[in-house]
């Protein structure tokens, strides 16, 4: 079988022309303005006429659909219901056209008001030529489209949308686009319908396109091919023709709002592709050969059927039943049937999603994969269901589906992943756009006006999880995490990437709505994945090998971290994670990769994900007398990888208690409670806003901001040294500096500013200090000590330990034989010490001395005997 994706050389030389070629022939003869054959053709005439662009002459439901389009009956100038309704396709009359251009009077062709524009045509009879059953004036439509191709510039559209216009926008757009198409040798032209609408003279054409796509699209194909050939006369199309793929209709129809009015109109729906059939070879032309005389004949598909010739067509042969189908000389095209399901954002509350069948043809086949979010433009079809194909009895039911003309892959609800990530998957084979994808203009206006609010920061942070009470700083930190810093790539230095992702850890008393915050982040973040530390294994987080149920092949399935590449991975109950699981996070949180070595597969996967985690303290409630590492069952190296660590504590404070009680009591009153204040924005808008900022804005540090960062960092470091240098505490490390940079960038992103200003740095440094103040304060000294987080022991405690070691050794050396019972030593040591020494720290000191090889401990428990090994330790 030959498919159209093959190169011409694959075709047998005497194949009767490629199918596209026929279409060109057909159209050029048909629309040749002076051709008298246009009117003279009769319905029963040449079968070749039926060979058309697949999506326009669908053969999905076999005999039920045929060439019912008016183009196939070009000689029917009058509307006569008996004739035309003979074919069982959904009948069309002007009633389906909600707002017809000109009120249609059956039987009387209309004179167009735009005839004045018609300069090329002298024959007056042609100017009123309408396609049957429509208001389409062929000539007018072609002229206006040609005019559009010649003269449209991007500035037409941008002026309407108040976008900045660059000089190149003033140049005619389509010659440039066709030039591009010429270079890449494409045959599809994506037509952004916003352009048609922005160009004053094609408003009508746009409306016609939507209402009569079946008629207008071939006209456009024809026009643009002519236009193309006039630009590149030397180009040999090899009988092919350019195809218009219209998209970006002014409004998308919701799947469940598709109704009989939409039948045979061009519509756009959004949805999630859930199933796709394998590629079906769809026969376009059958090739028959006579077994006796080798006479060959081709038969085109007529209403989904091939009429097999019963006798040889050569008069001298005329054998009965001698014609046989030669399979590999038939003409096929690709076809695919897929199901598309509503996306969660449009399904009405309390209902389950619905699905629509769509047919994909030729180069649209396999563009979308199951699981993709698509924006599909196509012609909505309805075909009746017969009880029995041989009988006329019908059940008055219509099957509906969509013949697709354009597919756009979108992911609108969630924030878009960085385009940089997508481009890494290699150049897309399928061009779905003529420009870069943008947030629709109405949204953009809304976003820009929002960004000008003076209290933007507060509004956004309030809108984040509005049902959660207070916790303003935490919300602000999480907000900045959602925006993220700038990801930097260095070509020269050794480290290839600097992460821009901000990691946040929430720690605190149970019942302080940590989980709800995480759930909320998960909902609005791009590629958010929510997992609970308790349940997830290292495998569940990274990747696992599984057998594909269909192909029985081994496949590498991504785990939570890989799935959230470019997004936020929310991990609840972080502390409940097993050590092996946690260990993979070390790599993820700094290098942002995951190494997998399983079942013979060794690979490194990208996991450029921010982590938002929550953890509970060891003894379910936070012990204020212990430091963070002592309260948390988490290793210090992992803790230090979090940019922000928030303590959410349940503090007793009369005012806030009262506010909380009031809030809760109000919840139980029957009327709807007013949570989170009044001035908040919707989740959708917040998502869009974050999406927009993440995609459009990559802020760069300004000179002053850089200086300010240095100041802030130095100031933070100084806090540890202000006591004459006798005792050094680390109050900040380079990790904090990096965090500060990332947060300042995120803050600038939030303002939609391209440069990081001093104010951004101020806020970043404030948030960081607030967080440090909470989590890195040594409860014994009340001062900030980064060592707590970095090594788990405060410098104060370390000093204490050192002095204990010294005195212990001197004590040991006083015993005879340098050995002593554990119990006696502990007792003596405690007597000597001014402050009581607890068993834990005593054991620690012993352990560390033993490790250093200074003492030897033998025996078990309290019966241990301690012996000093070297007398030099005395010194």
């Amino acid at each position, binding site marked *: 079988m030959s498919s159209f994706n093959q190169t011409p050389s694959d075709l047998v030389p005497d194949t009767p022309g490629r199918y596209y070629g026929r279409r060109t022939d057909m159209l050029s003869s048909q629309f040749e303005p002076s051709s008298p054959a246009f009117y003279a053709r009769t319905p029963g005439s040449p079968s070749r006429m039926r060979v058309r662009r697949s999506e326009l002459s669908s053969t999905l439901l076999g005999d039920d659909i045929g060439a019912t389009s008016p183009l196939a009956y070009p000689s029917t100038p009058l509307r006569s219901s008996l004739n035309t*309704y003979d074919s069982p396709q959904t009948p069309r009359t002007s009633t389906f056209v909600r707002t017809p251009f000109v009120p249609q009077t059956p039987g009387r062709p209309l004179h167009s008001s735009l005839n004045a524009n018609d300069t090329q045509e002298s024959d007056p009879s042609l100017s009123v030529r309408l396609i049957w059953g429509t208001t389409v004036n062929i000539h007018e439509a072609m002229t206006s489209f040609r005019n559009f191709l010649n003269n449209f510039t991007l500035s037409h559209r941008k002026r309407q949308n108040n976008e900045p216009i660059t000089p190149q926008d003033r140049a005619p757009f389509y010659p440039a686009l066709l030039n591009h198409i010429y270079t890449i040798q494409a045959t599809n032209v994506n037509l952004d319908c916003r352009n048609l609408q922005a160009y004053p003279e094609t408003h009508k054409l746009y409306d016609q396109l939507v209402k009569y796509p079946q008629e207008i699209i071939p006209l456009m194909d024809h026009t643009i091919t002519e236009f193309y050939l006039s630009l590149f006369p030397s180009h040999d199309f090899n009988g092919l023709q350019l195809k218009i793929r219209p998209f970006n209709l002014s409004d998308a129809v919701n799947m*469940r709002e598709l109704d009989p009015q939409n039948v045979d109109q061009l519509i756009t729906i959004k949805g999630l592709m859930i199933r796709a059939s394998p590629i079906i070879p769809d026969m376009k032309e059958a090739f028959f050969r006579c077994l006796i005389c080798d006479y060959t004949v081709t038969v085109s598909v007529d209403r989904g059927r091939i009429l097999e010739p019963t006798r040889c067509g050569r008069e001298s042969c005329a054998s009965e039943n001698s014609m046989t189908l030669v399979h590999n000389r038939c003409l096929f095209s690709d076809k695919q049937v897929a199901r598309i399901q509503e996306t969660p954002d449009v399904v009405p509350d309390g209902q389950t999603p619905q699905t629509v069948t769509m047919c994909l043809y030729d180069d649209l086949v396999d563009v979308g994969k199951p699981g993709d979010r698509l924006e599909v433009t196509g012609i909505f079809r309805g075909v009746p269901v017969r009880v029995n194909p041989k009988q006329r009895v019908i059940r008055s039911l*219509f099957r509906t589906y969509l013949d697709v003309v354009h597919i756009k892959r979108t992911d609108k609800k969630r924030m878009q992943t960085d385009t940089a990530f997508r481009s890494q998957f290699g150049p897309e084979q399928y061009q779905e756009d003529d420009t870069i994808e943008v947030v629709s203009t109405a949204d953009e206006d809304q976003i820009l006006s929002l960004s000008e609010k003076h209290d933007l920061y507060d509004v956004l942070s309030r809108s984040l999880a509005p049902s959660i009470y207070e916790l303003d700083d935490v919300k602000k930190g999480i907000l900045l995490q959602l925006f993220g810093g700038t990801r930097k790539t260095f070509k020269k230095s050794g480290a290839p990437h600097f992460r821009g992702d901000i990691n946040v850890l929430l720690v605190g008393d149970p019942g302080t709505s940590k989980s709800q915050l995480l759930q909320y982040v998960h909902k609005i973040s791009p590629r958010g994945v929510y997992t609970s530390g308790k349940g997830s294994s290292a495998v569940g987080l990274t990747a696992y090998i599984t057998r594909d149920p269909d192909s029985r092949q081994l496949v590498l399935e991504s785990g939570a971290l890989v799935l959230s590449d470019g997004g936020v991975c929310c991990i609840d109950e972080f502390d409940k994670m097993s050590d092996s699981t946690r260990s993979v996070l070390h790599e993820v949180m700094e290098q942002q990769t995951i190494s997998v070595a399983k079942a013979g597969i060794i690979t490194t996967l990208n996991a450029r994900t921010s982590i938002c985690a929550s953890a509970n303290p060891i003894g379910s409630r936070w012990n204020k007398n212990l430091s963070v590492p002592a309260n948390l069952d988490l290793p210090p190296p992992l803790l230090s990888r979090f940019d922000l660590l928030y303590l959410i504590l349940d503090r007793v404070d009369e005012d806030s208690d009262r506010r909380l009680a009031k809030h809760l009591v109000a919840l139980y009153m029957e009327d709807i*409670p007013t949570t989170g204040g009044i001035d908040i924005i919707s989740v959708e808008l917040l998502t869009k806003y974050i999406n927009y900022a993440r995609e459009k804005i990559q802020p760069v540090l300004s000179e002053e901001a850089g200086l300010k960062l240095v100041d802030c960092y130095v100031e933070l470091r100084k806090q540890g040294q202000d006591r004459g240098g006798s005792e050094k505490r680390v109050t900040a490390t380079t990790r904090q500096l990096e965090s500060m940079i990332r947060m300042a960038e995120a803050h600038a992103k939030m303002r939609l500013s391209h440069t990081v200003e001093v104010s951004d740095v101020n806020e970043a440094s404030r948030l960081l200090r607030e967080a440090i103040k909470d989590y890195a304060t040594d409860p014994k000294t009340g001062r900030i000590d980064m060592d707590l987080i970095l090594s788990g022991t405060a410098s104060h405690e370390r000093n204490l330990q050192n002095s204990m070691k010294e005195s212990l050794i001197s004590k040991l050396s006083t015993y005879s034989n340098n050995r002593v019972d554990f119990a006696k030593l502990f007792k003596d040591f405690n007597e000597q010490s001014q402050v009581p020494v607890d068993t834990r720290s005593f054991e620690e000191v012993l352990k560390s001395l033993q490790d250093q090889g200074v003492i030897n401990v033998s025996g078990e428990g309290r019966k241990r005997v301690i012996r000093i090994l070297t007398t030099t330790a005395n010194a």
Partner: protein
Amino acid sequence: MSEQIEQPLQYISKLFDEHLTNQSCTEFDPSSSFLPLLKDYKNQIISLNEVPVQQVPKNTLVRFRCMIQDTGLGQEMFISAYEKLDPNGNSKLTCYRYTDDPIEAELNTMQNEHLNERSLVYCISPPGENNWAKEAHNVNSDPLIDGINNLEIKAPNQISAKKFPLPNRDHTCSIVKFYNDMAESVKVGQLIEVIGIRGQDMTQQQNDETELDSALDLFSDIPVLHAIAFNNLNAINSYPSLGNVTHQTPQIRAQLIDYISSVLCNDTLVAEFVLLQLLSRVTVKNRGLKIGNFTLNISGFPAHQTTEQDKKTPLLTLYNPASKAFSDVLDTLNVHTVQIPLTIDGLNNTKFTPKSINENLEAGILQLVDGTVVLVDETVLEEGQLVDAGVRNFQALNDVILNQTLTYEFPYSQYQFDTDLNVISLSTSKSMLPNHCSIHLSMNNSNENRVQPSNETLDTFRQFIHSAKYSSYDIPEQVSEYIQTRFVNERKAATESKTELPTQEELMLRMNLARLAAVSFGETSLSAERYDYVINLDKQRRARMAEQSSN
């Protein structure tokens, strides 16, 4: 009236002719003339809940009390009217709604302006509906006929069995076709009563060339019902026939607690908590926050050694005699109840959440009507390994208990649906499942003196529970002030005495209990005394829990 019931299509046809005289045919909607029938002539209309659907001939007027299981079947485009030649040779516009009969007509007699669409919705008889409720709905009950009807051997249908939440239970299902945007207001899990016309069972449609079978093709032989109108039976309307019982609230309350305690070793404290739980429902939904759901755990429930015999019992039947007795009492008090014995096998081999497989939404055990009492019996749980399905089921149960949401799985997407299920869990010791409140059963005074109350008494009990559950309630300003002050002071006192701080959760539990206690006494607003009563009640519960943990 009799024509309307016996010849519904002819009657509709007449209505249609009348309608045509002044309006266009697209807006034709006969629901208003049929809806009153459900009220006044209910007993004359065949109910699919009582009569096996196979016995009902085509084009008969029927009613069906059902739960919406799936709204994802989409719409169907059809010709709503066509020109028909009458015997005199005149062509006349004929109504072609509410029937599946094929038309012997040429397509050319159809005008596309009569093209219309109807929505297909999969409905099932209410899962977990108790026998007393069925009888109460069955207005013209005849034990003999009902007996015969129940004997009807039902051919098991693989597809419909998967779309019913409770495995291996008899049920009626139907694809209901809704006209004129009626389907826009229905929600999954909603309980409705449809009046409509029985159509032709679904048939396999010939689709040799689509290559992708539509989900509808799965449903061959499923009965079809053309809905003319429907009544909403959610919330307060889910009760068969509600009288007024508020005047004797205190006596009923006491009797009811006695009745419940008869299967709880006469433990009236636990019985009171059970009563409060039966009165609970989600009262406020706001941005994912739900107020009012109250999951009760009864710990210290008598254990039961699982025998070989028990293992053979079908899924979802309780075999611990103590929980069985308790469940029987719950059955007599509530319209819908479902029992889930938690066993390793049960968890691993059933599905709690609905999942769409091949575009067909298969039900899960927890896809139930709002207000259903779910009794989870943990006493029969033994050690063993949970497979993936079991873990998911457990998670689903947790979600329902904590958030009252149920996740429906669709290919590449998940939908969360709000639920309002009353979960009571029984356990021998500390429960594995989360709960809002746990109470220990005291088994000291277990003298068996179960008396089965009369049907009238039971009816009073049910009506009492049902009307209290949906009664209105508010908190006056000064009581609100009182509660706040009390909370603040308690926290202060706790800090001073270094005891555990009263938390947000505790306050929320108390507020919840306060509402339930107030309505159980027939009060519509909270008083400070009632709040104190609740705190006292909660203290008794805590004391018992503390005593238990110290033992």
